[in-house]
């Protein structure tokens, strides 16, 4: 049944929006969520089809500009060496994510105090810890307790199998005496909440037909819907509205037929990700907020952080079946995570071990790099590569810089005529040095593990999948967009729960932290309203 006068309007049904919907659905609040995409049908995911790999090049591409589906909006990323990646549907970008799920380190929340860069967060690891734990339970997370890189993390399912490749690369790390640990994975290794366990199909980045990967369409949403949340799909919000006094009133959106609607609400929660959220705020201009809603600080859209990614690959002699198993989840190393100024840069990075690619990607990149020839020797070269490659992503901590921005493109609009976002982004000197260090160290591990051919490059263009910092949180309203609890300094009742509000980016994948943050914020909303 349609809810006419919701207490809460959530915009965006991805990682953070789903967590917020579930958290608040445990109260008597009436909740509506508007999402521009639709529900996914796992039976239609590429991995149910023989041509699964080819679908990565069009309708399941990570770039909305290439997919160009009705649910997508264009993003002008021509002024950035890193292209933006996302997915727009119920589940948001978790539909395509790898499910690599490490938490931030305690030091990530105190960068100013410890390393004299950027700003401290207004909260710390231990404020978030209960919500990290709750989120792990709701999402379903696999991993191993006892990691010396973290405070104690318990209650996970058995880790994703290392496979032969994990053993080989683990031995490489051991040879160098470096840290490594099985991945924290938002993928379940045993049946849980009506979801099947992972059966090592591999193409998690095109949707998991098994329901084993913890995308929020199969974790939070089924429960939130059962609890009475109304999720309106194919509804794209144009602007969040205020009255003449700057008081929040609701949002204007286009429904699936392109008809303009207004939805009133007492509380509006924005969860459109680090690009979609500043875009929406900048499009929400009014007399009270001529430069965009909640933008009195001028920081909406500034400080974009993307985690520049380096790639290292080793080809091994033995058959490692490395193309089998969850692509992004095997093991990680945080040997170079914490600051050591003798390395020539501040802060650090994670090395994320990746399983080898499937046959299409192996041959496309191999032929492109002239490592796999065409002609008589082609098949032999493929045999020597397929299942024998181990990849590594270097996830570099990006620091906030005002000139890295999301603004509105003056010319490009989406199918509803709403101005599209434009990205201006450059890597800082610190990030470049860190990336170069990571690529070198990555090669060192590959060689120690016995790689017979090792290569590396970065930043990799199509990897702008961690979108952070564009509506920063903080205690000082001159220097932040939202407060410690995600509420706008300028507009009461307006909250942001996605990774736009990150103060810094850490050197790990952000989904675990942004969802914990969303639960933390919703917990405060419940407390404040005695719910």
């Amino acid at each position, binding site marked *: 049944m349609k809810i006419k006068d919701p207490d809460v309007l959530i915009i965006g049904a991805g990682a953070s929006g789903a967590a917020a919907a579930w958290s608040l659905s445990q109260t008597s609040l009436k909740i509506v969520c508007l999402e521009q995409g639709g529900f996914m049908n796992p039976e239609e995911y*590429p*991995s*149910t*089809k*023989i*041509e*699964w790999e*080819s679908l990565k*090049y*069009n309708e399941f591409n990570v770039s909305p500009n290439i997919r160009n589906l009705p649910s997508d909006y264009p993003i002008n990323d021509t002024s950035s060496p890193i292209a933006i990646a996302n997915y727009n549907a119920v589940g948001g970008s978790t539909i395509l994510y790898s499910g690599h799920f490490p938490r931030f*380190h*305690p*030091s990530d929340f105190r960068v100013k105090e*410890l390393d004299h860069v950027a700003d401290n967060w207004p909260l710390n690891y231990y404020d978030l810890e209960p919500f990290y734990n709750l989120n792990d339970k709701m999402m379903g997370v696999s991993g*191993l307790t006892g990691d*010396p*890189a*973290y*405070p104690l993390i318990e209650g996970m399912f058995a*880790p994703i*199998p*290392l496979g*032969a490749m*994990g*053993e080989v690369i*683990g031995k490489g790390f*051991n040879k160098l*005496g470096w*840290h*490594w*640990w*099985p991945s924290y994975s938002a993928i379940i290794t045993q049946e849980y909440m009506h979801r099947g366990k992972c*059966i*090592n*199909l*591999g193409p998690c980045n095109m949707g998991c037909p*098994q329901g084993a990967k913890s995308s929020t369409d199969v974790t939070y949403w089924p429960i939130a819907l059962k609890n009475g949340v109304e999720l309106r799909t194919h509804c794209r919000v144009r602007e969040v509205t205020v009255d003449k006094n700057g008081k929040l009133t609701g949002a204007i959106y286009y429904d699936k037929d392109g008809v303009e609607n207004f939805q009133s609400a007492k509380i509006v929660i924005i969860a459109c990700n680090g690009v979609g959220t500043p875009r929406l705020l900048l499009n929400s201009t009014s007399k009270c907020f001529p430069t965009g809603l909640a933008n009195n600080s001028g920081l909406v859209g500034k400080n974009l952080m993307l985690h520049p990614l380096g790639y290292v690959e080793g080809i091994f002699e033995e*058959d490692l*079946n490395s*193309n*089998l*198993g969850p692509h992004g989840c095997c093991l990680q190393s*945080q040997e170079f*995570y*914490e600051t050591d100024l003798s390395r020539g840069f501040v802060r650090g990075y994670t090395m994320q071990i990746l399983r080898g690619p*499937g*046959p*299409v990607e192996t*041959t*496309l990149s191999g*032929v492109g790099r002239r490592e796999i020839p*065409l*002609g*008589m020797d*082609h*098949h*032999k070269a*493929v045999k020597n590569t*397929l*299942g024998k490659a181990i990849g590594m992503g270097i996830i570099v901590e990006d620091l906030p810089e005002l000139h890295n921005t999301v603004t509105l493109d003056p010319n490009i609009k989406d199918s509803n005529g709403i101005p599209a976002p434009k990205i201006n982004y450059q890597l800082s000197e610190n990030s470049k040095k860190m990336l170069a260090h990571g690529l070198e160290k990555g090669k060192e591990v590959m060689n120690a593990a016995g790689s017979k051919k090792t290569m590396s490059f970065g930043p990799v263009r199509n990897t702008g999948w961690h979108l952070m910092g564009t509506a920063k949180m903080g205690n000082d309203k001159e220097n932040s967009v939202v407060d410690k609890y995600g509420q706008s300094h300028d507009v009461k009742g307006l909250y942001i729960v996605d990774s736009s509000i990150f103060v810094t980016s850490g050197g790990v994948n952000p989904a675990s932290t942004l969802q914990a943050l969303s639960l933390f914020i919703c917990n405060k909303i419940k407390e404040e309203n005695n719910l």
Partner: protein
Amino acid sequence: MEIFSEEEISKLSQILNLILPEYNENLPSASFIINNLNLTNSIHKHFVDASKNLCSRVENIIITDLILTQIKKNNFREFSVFVNLVLILYYSNKKVLNNLNVGSVPPFPEGNFVKEGDLYLLEQVFLKEKIYRE
């Protein structure tokens, strides 16, 4: 209506046989692609367009390795696009995948076995002092 003219089929078969020739009886030459096209699939459609474009640039009736090198040199961009599409279509074929030892082939009825791995390898990491800062 036929997708390709006889002349195009002849040129394409020769090019495909040279790019990805048959390899023992398990892996066929890529020329099978010409007879397995489904025009409702966008990648297949791209392949047809790229093939026609390439054929229109090739004057030779007989195509040898040497001539192929020339074609590649004179039409670098078009040739690269064509090769990428060939690779995508070739490695999306059931027979090819079944003979490649790539594990279970979609629709993945069984999933794949991946061994747990020896977690005892972590012993030396486990014994490390904590490496994070508070």
